[in-house]
């Protein structure tokens, strides 16, 4: 299934300055991303795995130009996003969307669901009011919500439903690349299974390419074609998911895979 890359990141470096010392008077900078290079094939799912603090969310935001890079470049369909004019970048943003772990924190509590999902269409000036409403409605139905839900507020929904809203908001723009940052980590396994299947179906229907960030290696095994293993801001291993799970090369990956709960019992 190797096709041309739709999104490529080359040697991304991102440093943060952190306060240090007993009273936070000192400061030091450290590399949250240290020469990170990845490549996402069109129509496929690239998982980014690693423990908390390894730099996954930083990578997600740098890929979408939501955070400035120190150095390195991100190419979308071969074009360097950093060199685009702000108008052109705004245009491309439609194609590059994000789904967050905690949909509640990312949904404006004072907006109705219909408005939340329509916002991107409005920003990008897509369609007239009737067309936008129709697209929002179709998208909400596709993710398993109903017309009446358009009039409701985020707090009226369960965690799984809120994640469906977050997905609808990202996909209503018909993007090409969706970066999902821990999209099922806060959900019960039963809801997690529903959302994973929904994401897979939508990928087929809409020809989406996913960057799928997760710390759960069982979920990753299920959804990814390729996997990138991050450790302390560096990519320590990457390749096809079957190959890496069957024969991890790096000691850190081996440790990660050996720590998957239930593996011992399953192997017995």
């Amino acid at each position, binding site marked *: 299934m190797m096709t041309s890359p739709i999104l490529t990141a080359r040697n991304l470096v991102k440093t943060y300055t952190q306060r240090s010392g007993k009273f936070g008077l000192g400061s030091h900078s450290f590399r949250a991303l240290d020469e990170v290079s990845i490549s996402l094939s069109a129509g496929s799912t690239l998982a980014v795995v690693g423990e908390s603090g390894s730099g996954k969310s930083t990578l997600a935001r740098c890929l979408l130009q939501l955070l400035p890079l120190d150095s390195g470049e991100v190419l979308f369909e071969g074009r360097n996003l950093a060199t685009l004019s702000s108008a052109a970048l705004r245009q491309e943003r439609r194609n590059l969307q994000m789904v967050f772990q905690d949909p509640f924190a990312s949904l404006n509590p004072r907006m109705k669901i219909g408005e939340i999902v329509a916002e991107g269409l409005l920003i990008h000036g897509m369609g007239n009011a009737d067309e936008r409403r129709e697209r929002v409605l179709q998208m909400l139905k596709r993710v398993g919500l109903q017309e009446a839900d358009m009039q409701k507020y985020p707090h009226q929904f369960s965690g799984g439903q809120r994640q469906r809203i977050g997905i609808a908001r990202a996909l209503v723009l018909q993007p090409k690349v969706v970066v999902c940052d821990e999209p099922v980590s806060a959900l019960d396994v*039963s809801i997690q*299974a529903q959302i994973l299947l929904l994401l897979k179906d939508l990928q087929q229907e809409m020809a989406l390419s996913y960057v799928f960030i997760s710390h759960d290696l*069982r979920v990753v095994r299920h959804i990814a074609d390729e996997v990138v293993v991050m450790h302390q801001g560096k990519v320590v291993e990457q390749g096809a998911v079957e190959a890496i799970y069957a024969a991890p090369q790096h000691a850190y990956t081996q440790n990660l895979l050996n720590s998957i709960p239930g593996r011992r019992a399953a192997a017995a």
Partner: protein
Amino acid sequence: MTPLLQVDGLTVVPRAAPERCLVSDVSFTLQPGKTTCVVGESGSGKSLTALAVMGLLSRQLQRTQGSIRFQGQELTTLDAEAMRRIRGRSIGMIFQEPMTSLNPVLTIGHQIGEPLSVHLGLRGRALQARVAGLLQQVGIPPERANSYPDELSGGQRQRVMIAMSIACEPAMLIADEPTTALDVTVQAQILRLLDELKTRMNMGMLFITHDFGVVADIADDVVVMFRGEVVEYGSVDQVLNRPQHPYTKALLACVPDADGKKPLLPIDYAWLEQQPATTAASPQHSMSEPA
């Protein structure tokens, strides 16, 4: 043999709405040196079951029925003071969030030492030696006794919690999702540590989790909860490999496996509602097994 813990018909309701059972007729048994896992989705009543066993239900809630026998002694009729003694001394507890349960302004050595001085009357050098020994047991260098909680990583803080909870060598440890907030490699270490301590101290463990992988790794017996009820209760092999109840089967089908071989099947709740409720196995089951 007297079971370490025998819970029989435990029922918990909100005082404001006593017709709503949050925990309904829950029964299970725990033997010394064994681990019983309580597993289920969020809101299924796992934490309330644990809190009820420890006599720590909040004021808004009430245990209306059920007996809780610990080492043969009925706990539900004890007064608050007697219950407090048992909790510190014979029943250890660990919760999910180590940061919220540790006091940020006291050193970890001080906090680990507290149950030892309160319950065992240890002081001075003897106390310090015990604290050092406990830190060593949970894999933290004893010289870290003077550190404050925020100087430790999440995994280390959870180890401190474990050291505190096993300080008095309790006969039973109740752990409510103690590794849920931790990275997998740290989780694996903590689970190994708990398993080791259990064996070394012949401690019984009541371990609450929503993760069937964790269940597979550490459980001897498994209690599956759904909407406040026990829908299945049996040995780990039976529950994971030969589940009887439609809900257990459905829940297991949602769990992705580490090899990616099994297709995921979300729960069809409408279908589930129509299934005849198979009765949960009786609590006799694990007593009949060689302990």
